[in-house]
């Protein structure tokens, strides 16, 4: 963790210090000023923004290090800055309190945006190192002369609205060198640390998840459950976004969902989620396993960026994204599958997800995660390649490897994909599928015997060659390449050759006496069927 410590104020720079609370403000302070735009013509100065460096940062410090309601301004004050121009600007807040640790820093920091905007004549946009502030001429005319006044007002708002903040101290900087130095040496490492922490946050680390029911307008029973390991399936809302929205509008589309009891740690089933889903979906969805594909999958609204589809032929899962126009190896396009899956229902065999779920450490972990994935369009695979375990990167086919089921089966066998011999799911080491590579041959033989008989009946001449056709085939046959023996008078049969090497020295076709009769019988048989 990056060490949190107070800034060392450089020597030789103008510094102004003010201690203690201030209640007399020259401008109005109220939430009704939120959203107010200070137009260029009405602007006294611009701070930070697109043309100048700047940032805002909250640091949690031990209680004895924070001097409550102290403001240190490093650099020129508002009435000394050149009017009509943009200037560098940084706002740093030290906070302390029994309940405060570095996890709360971003939550507190976010409110700086709101509180600055509460001040009449102050416009605050964006966050972190993208902040952009304008101070209006109207505010200056009313008597707003110092940035310290702004800091004092914001600090009071912090303490009022976030009572867990026991002490707060501010350092505002307009000195260019010090803004740049502090941004580089102090703020950036903390922002990076926060981002890393976001990536490392998991379902088990939080007390509650968030729901999203925005899509109920067109998918009435839909309930999206957003967790650290599972962003919304439209890809738009992360657990952090859900939390932010729930705080702003607790009755809005994103509500907190208490986890309750964990019922299935691998599938990701929680009693709290089930109860919530049942109520919010009007009973349509009773159980959700957040990280399962085949059992109680998460409902799909229709907004998903990517749809997953189970292919029984290979006992594996394929994924296809919205922009891919061709059909998948199962013969279906994104829009066809999306049409079947949407509407806020749970459809076993299909699952809508957001692109960022591929990044999740719990990505369909109950069904083997990446080790169950057999196909995805190249464009999609490229986008998520870094999240695919290295040993699987070459084993997942794209449209360049396989357009049809036959080609897919071929490919999977060639690369020895886990589904061929059986998938062991990494989460607990359990073997969850049997595979079809080996079994195949056994069934294969049976199948070829059966076919051989038929062929025998139809064309006895071919008989000697039949045993040579050793065809290892996967379980389902419906999509195998078919070699129809078209015989005008014979019984209609299909001979399926897969991976066959046939050596025939000579084929002799003779007209025999029984041929006609046999043929007729065959036809009759066919009609009966």
């Amino acid at each position, binding site marked *: 963790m990056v060490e949190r410590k107070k800034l060392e104020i450089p020597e030789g720079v103008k510094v102004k210090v003010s201690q203690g609370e201030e209640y007399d403000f020259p401008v109005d302070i109220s939430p*009704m000023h*939120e*959203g*107010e*735009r200070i*137009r*260029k*013509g009405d602007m006294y100065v611009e701070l930070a923004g697109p043309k100048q460096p700047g940032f805002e940062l909250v640091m949690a410090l031990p209680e004895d290090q924070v001097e409550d309601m102290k403001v240190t301004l490093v650099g020129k004050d508002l009435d000394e800055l050149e009017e009509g121009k943009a200037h560098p600007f940084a706002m740093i807040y030290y906070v302390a309190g029994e309940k405060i640790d570095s996890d709360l820093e*971003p939550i507190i920091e*976010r409110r700086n*945006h709101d509180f600055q905007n509460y001040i009449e004549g102050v416009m605050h*946009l*964006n*966050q*972190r190192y*993208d902040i*952009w502030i304008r101070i209006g001429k109207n505010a200056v005319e009313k008597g707003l002369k110092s940035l310290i006044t702004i800091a004092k007002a914001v600090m009071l708002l912090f303490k009022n609205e976030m009572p867990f903040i026991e002490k707060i101290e501010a350092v505002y900087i307009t000195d260019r060198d010090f803004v740049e130095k502090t941004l580089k040496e102090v703020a950036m490492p903390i*922002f990076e640390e*926060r*981002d890393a922490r*976001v990536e490392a946050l998991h379902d088990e680390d939080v007390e509650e998840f968030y729901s*999203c029911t*925005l*899509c109920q*307008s067109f998918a009435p029973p839909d309930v999206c459950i957003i967790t650290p390991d599972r962003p*919304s399936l*439209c*890809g*738009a*809302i992360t657990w*952090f*976004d859900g939390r*932010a*929205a729930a705080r702003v509008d607790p009755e809005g*589309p994103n509500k907190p969902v208490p986890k309750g009891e964990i019922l299935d740690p691998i599938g990701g089933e929680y009693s709290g989620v089930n109860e919530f889903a049942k109520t919010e979906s009007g009973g349509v969805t009773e159980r959700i396993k957040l990280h399962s594909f085949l059992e109680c999958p998460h409902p799909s*609204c*229709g*907004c*998903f*960026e990517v749809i997953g589809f189970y292919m029984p032929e290979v006992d594996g899962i394929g994924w296809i994204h*919205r*922009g891919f126009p061709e059909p998948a190896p199962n013969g279906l396009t994104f829009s066809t599958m999306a049409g079947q899956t949407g509407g806020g229902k749970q459809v076993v065999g299909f699952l809508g997800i957001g*692109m*960022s779920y591929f990044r999740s450490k719990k990505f369909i972990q109950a069904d083997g995660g990446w080790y169950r994935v057999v196909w995805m369009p190249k464009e999609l695979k490229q986008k998520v390649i870094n999240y695919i375990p290295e040993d699987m990167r070459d084993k997942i086919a794209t449209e360049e490897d396989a357009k049809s089921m036959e080609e897919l089966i071929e490919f999977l066998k060639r690369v020895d994909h886990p589904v061929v011999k059986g998938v062991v799911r990494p989460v607990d080491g359990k073997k969850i599928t049997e595979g079809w590579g080996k079994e195949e041959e056994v069934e294969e033989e049976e199948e070829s015997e059966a076919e051989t008989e038929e062929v025998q009946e139809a064309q006895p001449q071919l008989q000697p060659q039949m045993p040579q056709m050793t065809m290892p085939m996967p379980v389902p046959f419906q999509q195998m390449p078919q070699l129809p023996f078209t015989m005008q008078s014979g019984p209609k049969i299909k001979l399926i050759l897969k991976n066959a090497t046939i050596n025939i020295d000579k084929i002799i076709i003779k007209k025999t006496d029984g041929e006609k009769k046999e043929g007729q019988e065959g036809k009759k048989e066919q009609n009966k069927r």
Partner: protein
Amino acid sequence: MRSIAVIAVTGKGGTGKTIFAAMLILHLCRKGSLLAVDADPDSNLPEALGVEEVEKTLGDVKEVFQHTRDEIRGDKSIWFEAKVFEVINELEDFDLLVMGRPEGEGCYCYTNNLLRGILRKFMKHYDFVVVDCEAGLEHFSRKTIDRADCVVVVSDTSKKGLKTAERISELMKSLGINARKAIVGNKVTDAKAEEMIENFASRAGFEFLGALPYDSMVVENEMAGKSVRDLPECEFKRKFKEVLKKFESWCLS
């Protein structure tokens, strides 16, 4: 808090609703702060207002948000709000927001939900918001703009123009837009046609604001791609002043 009026100007394409909206904007912006919203991708409100070039539209920002939201660090709503503020064109006497291209593929539920909150907060700081929108009232139906106080339908004397007015009226009802509605006739050539529109208005529950004539000056001005600011004194302008008077006593009272 300011008392604001959100005025939607709509009507069938080709009726001159954008010229009407532009003239209304140029008039109202002298009376208070004004936000002009171009919500019709087929119209040319910026051109009619004399705005040379609009570099970026809200549609562009929405697309960027759709495609990069996964990489946005921190709070997405704050990021999005800043981008919305960036695409607002600050002109000398009013601000202009161009909605721009229609939505692409994918889900815009979250995007539009954020946008609704941002625009709601933002619009209330203007004295007037004038929205030039197509007859489908798209941005109202998506609720990205979630209120309107007055809806002004511009119609020519064609049956289709009035039919569109009727449809807009139905649409407002089904969308729950609780606004007063008025109709202005345009390209009206004779008293009989004016009477027809007036009769329609009283039948269909519209306030009748008057009829603007067909004026070759307007056509020439438009053909030259000129702003309505450049429109010389003409019959249309004279009549417009009458309509405006009626509009003000109706809408702003």
